[in-house]
């Protein structure tokens, strides 16, 4: 019944057009209208994305909801869209997170409201494009274009050092993606003038060429994930970004890096992927342990959560490069879960920041006395961040640790250190912020959650718990695509 509708195009263009409309409301005199239109646009975006989940055929690894039309015939560049079990959940996560971001900025953003909301809506559409594109050039366009709104969000609505952070973020990611462009053009000629990603997958390549291509893609995506040691833009970007920017950064854009590994590195250069897996796994484990320790000593809540994000993303890259079902599905589950949990953590910090205008742990203490509802929700999210069973945070980490033992006991050993480190940095922060007696008078004036804040945190709480108690729907959707990808990677592409 949905066969006739260009669903993927809708998920891309509905938010973008909504963003244009919001932008047209112009100055802040129309801010209430801009907010309302933005919410309508975001909800509409989620509504058109929903059928992708409900009508998804989990039994096949083929691309679904495929759309194809010519874009630049001279270069054989096409508007080719489609999703599989790997990209579909991410697309839905993005559309969902956009609604959260609009709600989070509802009262907080008071200047250039229309522009702020529009930036997020347009970004949402562009990110959906990244996940849905099957043409490499189309992918590249979306991949680069989504940087612009994010750059603007940090640079305009950010904190005092926003320009430094925005430029650092932009240069870091641009540097990586330029090499990817070179790789794509090389592949274009190898594939006899085709930018089809699926054609690239079938291309036989020698090992040295594969390694060069792998490294080109690796740079682009490792920066995005971000992997150690190209991660230092993330804490700065998070600290300076407004809450909404942090949420999108953590919940969505980091996933683009991991998605890139799955869509480009593994299937296009399988031999190089195996050849270099030890290197990637090492970097991932460094991320888990080193970054976990760094997170421990942060005094800025946003920085702490940013470092914790890097550490959690270490599980994603680790899981991907273990080359077994449990590891890869674990990585995907971890991506979705991290989307929920990091969004919730950053929104929670936003809730506190809106009241006290400080991100410093030392400025809080004893919040539970004034904000019991918030304290309870933050406890849940902190436990999810620490990977407690029953929350979504556990599922992915557990799967990846289980998978790592099969490959090498010591991989699992180092990865499992997150059980201690993750609990230490998360709960120590929780203790200093929420528990204790009130020491600062400013905390005494803090009010508990307003209904709008309660709504978005409660929805996330439900998702975190539901995914933790019953993750099966998620893994069922992924299984065919993951099996297909693993089978593909297991075959050598050496000519």
């Amino acid at each position, binding site marked *: 019944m949905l066969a006739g509708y260009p669903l993927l195009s809708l998920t891309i263009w509905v938010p973008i057009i909504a963003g244009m409309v919001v932008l047209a409301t112009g100055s802040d005199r129309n801010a209430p209208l801009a907010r309302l239109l933005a919410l309508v646009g975001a909800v509409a975006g989620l509504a058109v994305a929903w059928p992708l989940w409900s009508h998804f055929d989990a039994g096949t690894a083929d691309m679904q909801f495929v759309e194809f039309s010519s874009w630049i015939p001279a270069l054989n560049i096409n508007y080719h869209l489609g999703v599989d079990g790997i990209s579909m959940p991410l697309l839905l996560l993005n559309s969902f997170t956009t609604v959260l971001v609009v709600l989070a900025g509802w009262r907080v953003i008071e200047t250039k409201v229309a522009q702020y909301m529009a930036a997020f809506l347009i970004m949402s559409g562009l990110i959906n494009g990244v996940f849905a594109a099957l043409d490499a050039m189309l992918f590249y366009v979306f991949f680069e274009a989504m940087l612009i709104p994010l750059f603007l969000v940090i640079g305009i609505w950010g904190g005092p050092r926003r320009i430094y952070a925005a430029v*650092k973020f932009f*240069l*870091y990611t641009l540097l990586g993606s330029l090499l990817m462009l070179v790789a794509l053009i090389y592949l274009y000629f190898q594939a006899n003038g085709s930018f089809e990603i699926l054609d690239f997958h079938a291309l036989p390549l020698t090992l040295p060429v594969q390694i060069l291509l792998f490294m080109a893609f690796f740079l682009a995506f490792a920066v995005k994930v971000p992997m150690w*040691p190209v991660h*230092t*833009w993330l804490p700065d970007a998070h600290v300076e970004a407004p809450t909404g920017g942090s949420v999108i950064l953590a919940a969505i854009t980091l996933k683009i890096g991991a998605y890139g590994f799955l869509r480009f590195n593994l299937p296009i250069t399988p031999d190089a992927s195996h050849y270099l897996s030890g290197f990637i796994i090492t970097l991932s484990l460094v991320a888990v342990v*080193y970054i976990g*320790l*760094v*997170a*421990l*000593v*942060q005094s800025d809540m946003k920085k702490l959560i940013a470092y914790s994000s890097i550490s959690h993303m270490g599980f994603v890259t680790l899981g991907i490069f273990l080359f*077994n*079902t*449990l590891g890869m*599905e*674990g990585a995907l589950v971890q991506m979705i879960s991290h989307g929920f949990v990091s969004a919730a953590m950053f929104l929670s910090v936003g809730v506190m920041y809106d009241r006290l205008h400080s991100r410093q742990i030392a400025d809080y203490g*004893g919040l*539970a*006395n004034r904000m019991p509802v918030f304290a309870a929700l933050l*406890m849940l999210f902190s*436990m999810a961040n620490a990977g*407690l*069973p*029953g929350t979504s945070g*556990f*599922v992915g980490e*557990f*799967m990846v*640790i*289980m998978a*790592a*033992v*099969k490959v090498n*006991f*010591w991989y*699992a*050993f180092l990865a*499992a*250190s997150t*059980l*201690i480190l993750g*609990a*230490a940095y998360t*709960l*120590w922060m929780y*203790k200093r912020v*929420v*528990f*204790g*007696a009130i020491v600062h008078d400013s905390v005494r004036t803090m009010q508990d959650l307003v209904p709008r804040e309660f709504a978005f945190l409660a929805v996330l709480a439900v998702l975190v718990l539901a995914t933790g*108690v*019953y*993750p*099966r729907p998620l*893994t*069922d959707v992924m*299984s065919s695509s993951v*099996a297909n990808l693993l089978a593909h990677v297991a075959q050598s592409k050496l000519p």
Partner: protein
Amino acid sequence: MTHMQTLYLMVPLAPLAGAVIAGLFGWMIGRTLSHLVTIAGVAVAFVCSWLIFQDVQAGHVYNGTVYTWMTSGNVRFEVGFLIDSLTAMMMMVVTFVSLMVHVYTIGYMHDDPGYQRFFSYISLFTFSMLMLVMSNNFLQLFFGWEAVGLVSYLLIGFWFTRPTAIYANLKAFLVNRVGDFGFVLGIALVLAHFGTLDYAAVFAQAPAHAGDTINLWKGSPVSLMTAITLLLFIGAMGKSAQFPLHVWLPDSMEGPTPISALIHAATMVTAGIFMVTRMSPLFEMSQTTLSFVMVIGGITALFMGFLGIIQNDIKRVVAYSTLSQLGYMTVALGASAYSVAVFHLMTHAFFKALLFLSAGSVIIGMHHDQDIRHMGGLRKYMPVTWITSLVGSLALIGTPFFSGFYSKDNIIDAVKVAMEHGEPGAGFAYFAVLACVFVTAFYSFRMYFLVFHGKERFHRHHAENSHDEPHAQTHDDHGHGHDAHAHTPHESPLVVTVPLILLAIPSVIIGFLAIQPMLFGHYFDGVITINSTLHPAMQTLAEEFHGATAMALDSVTTLPFWLAVSGVALSWFFYMKRPDIPAAIKNRSGLLYRIMENKYGFDQFNDWFFSGGGRALGRLLWQVGDVRLIDGLAVNGSASLVGRLSMVIRRWQSGYIYHYAFAMIIGVFALLMWFVRT
């Protein structure tokens, strides 16, 4: 779904429903309704457990899936129940003690503003603990394992404004996570080598893997079973507070007393004992692990017992006694006397919950003063608490016919057999558990005499009331040393004393009644696996057992009995007759006393090495690695390099024509040279 399956589901879900209602809607439905609904939930669980217990006794074992949590590849991760005699016994203990604690809480937490929250937590705990014991697979075991840890964390920090409480709960969680670190790796090894996490399937395959080895280091293979069981046992060391992961349990006394009884004495801390018993088919395959278990248990039993002697906080005495008794259970596991360990788990659950709750009753009576030096002569004012405390203490020290006697004596005998059979580590363990009989009797009756007998010391001390329980902050009619309120102790209300009496009954009789079926009958048939040729303890004990009465009567000729008697006698002499002697000993043995007062220095070491070291390392990696090297050198360094380079190059664009002309001439000259050369 059959009727029994409905019952199985009811057991964990009824307390969960109570917890959810009291937790989410407690503010709406009020205090009375909150405690009614949670108590009803646990009561339903208790009744269902009783019915299930009867059914299991009739020979019905259930092993089935509730739902599939997740599938990945060809592995199914499931939530399911295994209902056999071990599970049924644990369900009875958990629901009964939990029910008693729920009722008791009405009295104990009467004035606390977090009343509903407290009931919600203890019901949530009951749910988690039941999921743990009812599990039929490792995954759900880990779920319950972590969930009880979470609730323990929440409850230790229940009075979250107190710095000591929120220090203790973080410490408890992190130390438990160290154990879980091993536990999760053990589970991962099971999955990697067995391809399933289902108990039955793993146990069935285990014999085939007996000789397997894994290469942890190149060229030095390790027995797979040893690796798995050691890692699993590390988990048990965290949860069951075994040396050196014991450090969290004494501090957990910062929580309200009802949860000290329920979580930190009767149920949660015994999860490790339960787990090892459940895994007996695996543990039986590694003598290395069993010896390790025995030694760890021995160390915990004896050295934690010593610390019980010098504690002055009534709850801490009981806490160290719990550590010591957990050591006993662990020793029994190591001697392959799994059923004895579980038997002691059960008797201990009753008498230790009793001791904690009566300690709580004393604390109520003393207006929240916990220092036993401020008590004395309370038997006149609190007769019910006095008698029930005496019963608990007698059971704890192993008085013949009391429940603790049967379980503890069998542990000692089992280790003795293990020692005579030459199992490594058993010699030390035997010495430890034997010596600890004396220590246990001494510290138990030191407390008993100081609290209930002798001079009344509370009148002198009420001015420096120690406020170890923080009710003081929430309602000021207790404590703060104001004299308007009479500080004469008083007996606690019925909701407190009735649970004490109901717990005192099994503390006396359960050992006598249950020893025959549980240890030497067929109760645990098909649940516990013992390799009797290698580990003959249980077989030998069964041959020597001639009924519960005979065992108790014979015991008066044995060493443990006289050790206990002399412990009681010495404490009577020291604390009733000549209180100057312990004071003199304390002054003379300065260093030894200081070591013991610092709890052997573990807390200081952990704070310095792990906590401080971790933060120092984190700061180093951050400041040197991230800030200086990556950002300073690589990122901003390359940016400033570009900047500096362009500063240099910019100078060349001077704008003077003769500069450009000169450069051109040099360029042309250089080109000419090049062409001339080739």
